[in-house]
């Protein structure tokens, strides 16, 4: 392992920690309002969708520059990983007695769902660092912003059940802790075995695009005015994709 790796590992950890801390920002609106409207969450998800799709364009371009078929193979694995996680979580949600879930169980369920998603996002941050600083900045930014509405969703469940703003922020951050935990080994893996970098970049892109298409976008369209959601997604997608090209 060469001399630059310890510094890079620290940078990866700090970046992934920043994305996790950003989740805590989701509790902030509750300091000013008792409740946050669903349309606000929808617009936040639309913003995150555009950033994540734009960032995925960058991941695919970077990976395809090395090996196109491997990048697409990785993307397929990323999609399968999200489908697998969703299937497992659906099993948790469908467990008998779920409909009578107590407040605490409901809180645990939301935490479980959000935490499970964080694993793939952590991998995305880690492999992005393997693809260079430009890509790393873009993916870190996209995931950090994506985390804010996730924190909002957690806080919206915890706050009505008596949790303080600080507790809401803390639990939101806890749900994203798999990000720094997963980012470092993912980065070390692609650094050590450079041949797997396009697979890793593709995995991150596939997981993010699928997450956007299966969760964020349909929910945003349902909870807010579709033309506004579409405009926000389109402009942020184009902005993010082009920002990566010009950085």
């Amino acid at each position, binding site marked *: 392992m060469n001399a630059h790796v310890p510094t890079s590992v620290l940078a990866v950890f700090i970046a992934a920690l920043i994305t996790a801390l950003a989740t805590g920002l989701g509790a902030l609106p509750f300091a000013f309002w008792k409740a946050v409207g669903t349309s606000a969450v929808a617009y936040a998800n639309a913003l995150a969708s555009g950033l994540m799709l734009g960032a995925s364009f960058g991941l*695919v371009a970077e990976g395809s520059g090395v090996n196109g078929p491997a990048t697409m193979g990785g993307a397929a694995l990323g*999609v399968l990983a999200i489908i697998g996680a969703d299937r497992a979580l659906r099993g948790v949600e469908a467990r008998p007695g779920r409909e009578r879930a107590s407040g605490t169980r409901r809180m645990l369920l939301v935490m479980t769902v959000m935490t499970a998603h964080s694993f793939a996002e952590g991998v995305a941050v880690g492999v992005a660092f393997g693809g260079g600083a430009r890509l790393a900045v873009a993916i870190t930014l996209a995931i950090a912003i994506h985390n804010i509405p996730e924190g909002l969703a957690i806080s919206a469940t915890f706050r009505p059940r008596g949790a303080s703003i600080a507790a809401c922020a803390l639990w939101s951050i806890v749900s994203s802790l798999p990000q720094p935990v997963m980012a470092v080994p993912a980065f070390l893996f692609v650094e050590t075995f450079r041949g797997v970098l396009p697979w890793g970049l593709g995995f991150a892109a596939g997981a993010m*695009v699928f997450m956007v298409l*299966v969760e964020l976008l349909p929910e945003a369209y349902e909870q807010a005015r579709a033309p506004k959601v*579409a405009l926000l*997604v389109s402009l942020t997608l*184009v902005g993010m*994709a082009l920002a990566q*090209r010009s950085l």
Partner: protein
Amino acid sequence: MSDPLLTALAYAAGAAAASALGALPFLRKRVLPPSWLGWASALAAGLMLGLAYTILVALPPNRAPALAGGAALGVLLVAAVARLSAAPSAPAEADAPAMGRLLLSGAVHAAHEGVAIGVATAVDLRFGAFMAIAIAVHNVPEAAVLVAGLRQRGVRLGEAAGLAVTANASQVALAAATLALTVPAPGLTPWMAGLAVGALIHLVMTELLPDSYHHAGRTSIALVAVAAMGAVVLARGGLP
């Protein structure tokens, strides 16, 4: 064919003609199941996102400011047209204005695809051929959705297929116009490429994806769209 203008015209005409294939499923079924229409829209959406990606990476990074300007124009243009030509209020409305809006929506949609074919041909002829083939494939599910709407309004199958091809005539005109503009003024190429990218992405976000989520489950929609996107990127080899 060495003349780029003729080449672009031929490519776009071939892509527009492929729309007629969208009528084929109706030979077996009078009405398509809603999930098929959702998957058709998702397929069209994924192909368009993949094409937008291929245009973005086809131009050198130093053209990003012009691409960004063009993309913003493309997004705003589609948003403005969508506001002006609001979708028919009743799904089975049979009056002429409703049919007109349906066809106008198809024509506007196709126009931006024509810009994409023209820009790709301006970048290089092989990219133009790739873009035309991908848009021809994209036109088939898109036309199936249009034919379904026309059939609901009592239009005969042959006539509906003809109208689907006619709606895509704007593709041919815009492909030729884009190439006629960009060949003498190459500085316009990133602007037109940006316009195509912005328009294609916004058409996906404002029409195709919301429509697809109405007709089928979100997991199947996401799978079809992501597979179509991946197929385009893979066919292009990721980078030009």
